[in-house]
């Protein structure tokens, strides 16, 4: 058995890499998969907070790499799911504490017993990013519907292609349905047009995400009680497993007349 290594990256900071990592891992664990997340953002760790595991950290990734503990000891078991684990980043070190070859070693060991290894990449294109993609089988690029985030995603895709880790698949996060339907936000079509890679998910802006992150409760667990972002993450998990899941309609519910005018403006 050999697990799949998935890296979540973006170039730009603040677009939602950590949120996507936590929710995707949760959604896959809910499907009964064995999942471990790795926080590769050494020095600025966050994933533990979003997953609600901050107070359980004893050992971290750097301890594993430097031989202070066994890999298993650094894997923190999730509170809610049997087969979901987190390997946290060290907070008191920096990116140079880990090398790309360290990441390959760690991931190869994890592949033996896990179905998915999901790596949360730091922002930027330097060492931390190189570490995060070193062992990757599949790269997910997260972007927002804004020009600067798309520009950085384009740069990252170029770097991934140069490393022959491509092509990668795209997640568009924080899409505001009402702004999209008014044509005030970069549309998904615009973004795909520029980046020319395959889309794997669109996540609507949803205040439950922020609430969930602060409480350490990924929204992917939320039921069908209106948490559309949770459904979006579960859809991505399905697509990662090779299912054909149709994309949700992220446009706001519009009146007959605005739909008519959309029809004419196209």
């Amino acid at each position: 058995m050999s697990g799949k290594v998935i890296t979540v990256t973006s170039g730009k900071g603040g677009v939602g890499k950590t949120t996507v990592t936590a929710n995707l891992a949760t959604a896959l664990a809910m499907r009964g998969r064995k999942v471990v997340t790795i926080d590769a953002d050494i020095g600025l760790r966050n994933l533990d907070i979003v997953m609600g595991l901050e107070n359980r950290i004893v050992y971290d990734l750097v301890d594993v790499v430097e031989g202070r503990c066994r890999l298993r000891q650094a894997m923190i078991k999730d509170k809610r799911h049997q087969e979901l684990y987190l390997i946290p980043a060290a907070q008191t070190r920096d990116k140079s504490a880990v090398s790309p070859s360290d990441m390959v070693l760690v991931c190869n060991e994890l592949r033996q017993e896990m179905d998915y290894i999901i790596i949360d990449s730091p922002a930027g294109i330097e060492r931390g990013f190189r570490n995060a993609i070193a062992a990757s089988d599949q790269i997910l690029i997260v972007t927002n519907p804004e020009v600067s985030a798309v520009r950085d995603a384009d740069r990252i895709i170029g770097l991934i292609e140069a490393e022959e880790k491509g092509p990668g698949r795209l997640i568009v996060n924080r899409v505001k349905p009402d702004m999209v339907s008014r044509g005030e936000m970069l549309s998904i079509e615009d973004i795909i047009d520029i980046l020319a890679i395959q889309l794997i998910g669109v996540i609507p802006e949803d205040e439950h995400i922020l609430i969930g992150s602060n409480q350490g409760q990924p929204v992917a667990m939320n039921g069908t009680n209106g948490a559309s972002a949770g459904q979006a993450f579960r859809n991505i998990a399905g697509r990662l497993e090779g299912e054909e899941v149709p994309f949700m309609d992220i446009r706001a519910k519009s009146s007959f007349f605005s739909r008519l005018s959309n029809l004419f403006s196209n």
Partner: protein
Amino acid sequence: MEQAQSLNVKGIREGLLITTATDGSFDVMREQLQAELGQKGAFFQGSRVALQVGARPLSKAQLLQLQRLFIEHNLELWAILADDAATRIHARELDLAIRLAGSNTDLDGNTLYMEPAPTNGKVAHHNQPPATNHHVLLLKETLRSGRSLSHEGDIVIMGDVNAGAEVIAGGDVLVWGRLRGLVHAGALGDETAVICALDLNPTQLRIANQIAITPHEPGRTPHPEQATIKDGQIIAERWNR
């Protein structure tokens, strides 16, 4: 007598190969290099440079001076190709490579085999616009943000040039795709250079010493255009023939 022959600069797979005069004092050589970099800085910018110094012995301090000179011009000196053994040792101490991969120079020196310069075979004349006999560089891929491409002749790109990418050519630039990044044609001073694209919507266009930006046109429909210098400024015209 301190009059040295001029420098030879050529593009190689690893970036730029600059061959310096072997006669004349170090200071003259350095000044010559400085003048060259100052003049063509924008064209070379960001390149990795291998410096061929021939038989001229160089001290570590002199190599450091050269290294600094390149850094000042936003270039990276990565290799020193020297016939003199002591110079090679100094270069190695500075973590510089002393041979090009794939060249037939062994680590103990001997002259590096040099490809003849393209077509005209002589030292390039820098003050002239590039001759039309420069090779055309054909690239069949999309240039994403952060990619930089420079070539002394013409460039043809089959693919898009995305915003954040830059293309710098001594001659013309043709983009069979969408041009959304920065293109500099005639970068060595050729005002007759043209830029054309199936969709000409760049962040900035430069031809020779002229700079133009694209007017903001919401709802524009893509169409092929060609940009040239007319009456001292860059004009883009719709291609319909």
